[in-house]
């Protein structure tokens, strides 16, 4: 045996049940790293022309520690850019068994030239593998894709689908078209056929909203769930789930309890208007239950904890909720504190790990030193 193997063999390794899966963690790639990794044309483009999309943080500045946990800034970096700090503050501190990375560096790269978009996504995925997945067996990731250019997105999915540390495909909550549009179906089909759920994460082109642009970050943030309602309405009403029966989607960082009223809203609407959409041959709420998962962050906090439980039941969410911290953002949920009291032991276990294990095909037990 080599010295390393010998050390490994003598380390105490125990087998234990997986009890905590964090399904929304945000590593961040620093600009110079991206520039270095991009192909020459796009590295030069980045240097000369930058990125075209207005950052949402410019549209709606976050006057709350720049939108981050104030204690999550690594030396010389920005929150999420240091594996070591993330490991310490999140994975080790909270004893996380598996953490799913959602790197948002390409979230609004759809504003760019298609090949630039594709190149940015490619380097993000490469970086994730080298700097994160290869360094920590607890980590899994999304495949970041140039979603507004379906052929290029499918190529990126195919590139990584064989690495089972990639457990889903990442889109934002809004693109150039509503995400139920047929334009995107080939991307969803490619994900579904590769056995990968599609995560829609808060962000992207959240523009007019039918009411006009809000003025304040408070409205933008409190509106994340409203944007998700628009997104899910589009997915259902355009027949996306009817057309792609093996598609699973995860509404990420948009809350979950709004799903109760959305189900009733769509069911009533469909009961009256189903002749317009014959391809929807089931109740919308059935599509939602069969195809949609939700993460819990930011956890809703009604005054009366009973109300949380009631709405979970009303929305049939007990086996559709997955815990997330959203580290390192300011509205981070702590595993120990944020899960509502009164959630039964079984439901709690599902929320903290069980549902994610099933959705992502994670092992139920791990051997850890």
């Amino acid at each position, binding site marked *: 045996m080599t010295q390393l193997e010998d050390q490994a063999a003598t380390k105490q390794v125990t087998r234990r049940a997986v009890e905590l899966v964090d399904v929304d963690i945000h590593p961040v790639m620093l600009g110079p790293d991206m520039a270095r990794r991009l192909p020459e044309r796009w590295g030069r483009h980045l240097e000369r022309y930058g990125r075209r999309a207005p950052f949402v943080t410019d549209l709606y500045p976050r006057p*709350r*520690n720049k939108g981050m*946990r*104030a*204690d999550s800034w690594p030396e010389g970096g920005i929150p999420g850019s240091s594996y070591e700090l993330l490991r310490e503050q999140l994975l080790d501190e909270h004893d996380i068994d598996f953490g799913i990375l959602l790197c948002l560096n390409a979230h609004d790269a759809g504003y760019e030239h298609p090949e630039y978009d594709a190149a940015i996504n490619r380097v993000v995925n490469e970086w994730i593998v080298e700097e994160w997945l290869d360094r920590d067996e607890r980590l899994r990731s999304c495949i970041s894709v140039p979603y507004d250019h379906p052929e290029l997105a499918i190529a990126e999915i195919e590139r990584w689908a064989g690495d089972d540390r990639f457990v889903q495909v990442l889109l934002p909550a809004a693109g150039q078209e509503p995400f139920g549009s047929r334009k995107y179906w080939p991307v969803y089909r490619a994900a579904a056929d590769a056995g990968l759920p599609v995560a829609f994460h808060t962000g992207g082109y959240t523009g007019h909203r039918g009411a006009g642009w809000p003025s304040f970050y408070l409205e933008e943030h409190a509106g994340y769930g409203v944007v998700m309602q628009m997104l899910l309405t589009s997915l259902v009403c355009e027949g996306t789930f009817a057309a792609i029966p093996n598609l699973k989607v995860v509404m990420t960082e948009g809350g979950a309890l709004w799903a109760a009223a959305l189900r009733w809203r769509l069911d009533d609407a469909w009961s009256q208007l189903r002749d317009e959409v014959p391809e929807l041959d089931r109740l919308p709420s059935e599509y939602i239950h069969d195809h949609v998962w939700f993460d819990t962050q930011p956890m809703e906090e009604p005054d009366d904890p009973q109300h949380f439980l009631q709405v979970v039941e009303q929305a049939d969410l007990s086996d559709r909720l997955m815990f997330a911290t959203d580290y390192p953002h*300011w*509205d*981070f*949920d*702590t595993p*120990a*504190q*944020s899960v509502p009291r009164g959630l039964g032991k079984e439901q709690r276990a599902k929320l903290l790990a069980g549902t994610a294990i099933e959705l992502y095909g994670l092992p139920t037990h791990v051997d850890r030193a």
Partner: protein
Amino acid sequence: MKVVVCRLEDFPEGERKIVKAGPRSIGVFNVEGEFFAIRNRCPHQGGPLCIGRLSPWAVASGPGKVTMDGPPRLVACPWHGWEYDLETGQSFMGPGETRVKAYEVSVARGDTLEDVRQAEADVRVPAAARAAGREPGPYVAETFPVYVEEDYVVVEV
């Protein structure tokens, strides 16, 4: 229980110090010459409250018309940003809101060595910590040279 933080001259305006008193972590703040001490744990989800940003009240007479009023006596939890008045521990949002425990801070003039040793002894320090030479929070008294002539900042816990 009195916990000695440090010498007054080592605690300038605008600074803060985190001390341990037994199992509790407490943040002590010097805000424009006034001292406040507050538990370093946000009642919301347990965040490290006392490393948060200090701000004064932002008082609005109407939309867009805001003045910053008074000294920065609100500490914002570095996690979710919930703010607490350093003096009362009250988050100001309304009735029934979570209150952080605020501790009375006094400056003890002319304390003797005996007083300080007694304060030390009052701190419930686990034997193991003492044996390891670690004092959880209180400023180690033996580093004070001639402290009877000095003012000490002392926390009543």
